């Protein structure tokens, strides 16, 4: 849960995660988007820093280990068998315990001889947007290297821009 509350008396817009909170409205951001996206959101960060948004509850999205408490398991088994200790169950428990301890963990151990222990292996990530544009830029430049044209830049129509000045001033204030 990542519960936040709008502390202002106005609507609060968190544009990049597409949320608008009415005055004093609280919301669990985990229901809006993935935790990583919410935590990386500039609008959330800015709103929290500015005090517009208060974090009420934020549990850890990590560290949820599915460990088995053997004592608890024994207790449950005993309760389900009227408190009697059954040797077969005890044996099964021992087997289960040894099986669990011998199971590989989720960590992948890199065994290639090319890497030393201290080598850091970067995760393979999606191409970043900037890299993608740079790749396209090379492709387009190569494609258009032999282009010529007789198109003249033509301005066909013009209209009064006085209204735009007002809009620009308003938007500068808002954004």
């Amino acid at each position, binding site marked *: 849960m990542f519960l936040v509350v709008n502390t202002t008396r106005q609507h609060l817009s968190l544009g990049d995660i597409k949320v608008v909170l009415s005055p004093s409205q609280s919301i669990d951001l985990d229901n809006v988007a993935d935790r990583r996206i919410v935590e990386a959101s500039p609008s959330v960060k800015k709103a929290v820093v500015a005090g517009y948004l208060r974090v009420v509850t934020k549990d850890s999205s990590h560290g949820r280990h599915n460990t088995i408490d053997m004592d608890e398991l024994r207790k449950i088994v005993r309760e389900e068998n009227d408190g009697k200790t059954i040797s077969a169950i005890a044996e099964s428990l021992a087997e289960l315990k040894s099986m669990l301890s011998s199971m590989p963990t989720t960590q992948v151990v890199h065994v290639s001889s090319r890497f030393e222990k201290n080598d850091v292996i970067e995760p393979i990530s999606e191409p970043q947007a900037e890299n993608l544009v740079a790749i396209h830029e090379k492709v387009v430049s190569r494609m258009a290297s032999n282009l010529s044209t007789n198109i003249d830049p033509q301005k066909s129509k013009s209209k009064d821009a006085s209204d735009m000045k007002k809009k*620009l001033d308003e938007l500068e204030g808002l954004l």
Partner: protein
Amino acid sequence: MNAHQKAVHNVASLKRPASVAPNAPVKTANNTESLQAQESPARAVGVDVGTMFFQTAELVDDKISVSAVRNAFVEIPYSSELEEILTRNGWRYVKDGTQYFVVGDDSMQVAKLFPGSVEIRRPLQDGVLNRDEPKKSLVLSGVIESSLGKAPDENSVICTCVSSPCADAGQDSTFHTARLKAMFTRLGWNVKVIEEGLAVILSERPSVVLDDGTEVPFSGIGMSFGAGRANCVVAYKGMQVLGMSVSRSGDWVDKQVSEQTAVPVSQVIDFKERVLDFENIDEDNDIAFALDAYYDAMLRHVVGLFAKKFTEVKSQFDKPLDVVIAGGTSMPKGFEKKLARIMSSVNLPFKIGDVRKAADPRNSVCSGLLTSAQIVKNRLVKGVITREQV
């Protein structure tokens, strides 16, 4: 250099100087004293690369100067006299080696002159780069480079738009966005990309009025009905809250009507642009009747998916939201009333205020893009943001 070669402006000759010193007192044609940062040669241009038209808007002497090139071309087989013919007729073209592509409205004229031997092709389809057109990037690069030239300095900005994520069967726009951006960045421009519906908001300035009478500008719903897609954006104080698009818009309507009435698409478009009036439908006229029916189906599809999307993001607006409409497909008379009727008949998770059409529906998106480009440019010139933050 012979006469024909002279007529062909090498792209390099159209390019503006790339190494103009920042803040040098260069007066460009598009540099105005009042709206643009003084003493800066930086340009700000709104560019709408649409399925039907390639449009630009720029401030020139305190006026918004708008240009439009039909986003279509035909390829003409090479012959030794070809360049002379093209030049004599004044046809605009892009040349790549021995390949000639006549672009814009001229392509329509050429297609009419040579029926069957040349066909009209489009760089874009359904709001994104046409995946079936191998020459799309080549032709579009030529049009962009000749229309805009190189950025005069490092603070010059182009703001362009893409469709919002598609809510129905439309194509993803990741490739389209990256390729389009690259066509501008390779010419030295800083590029800001916004969603099309937001451009309508920035141009038409819908507002919400609070209980105490305070007006909240740039808040409401912006809808753009182009040829390829219909786009919807909800914004609050100029910030986008929600955006979506659907792949049913003008082209879909035209195609359906053409199939149902056995009338060529070109005639359907002609009727739509010259005659269609939703307040006065002649039900004995098959084209009018079919257009009315398919516009209705298209709008119900758009509004239905929009309501669903709005519900999913759990946004809450207590006050009625004004709707502003733009785009060539919204041009027929009575379109806004038809949309208002459909919106009121659908169970929407918000209240609708006024539904109004932009004064200049065809150029509204481009004007909004220019507004955004101006803001970014002013911030760059003042050093409020860096090029990386554009």
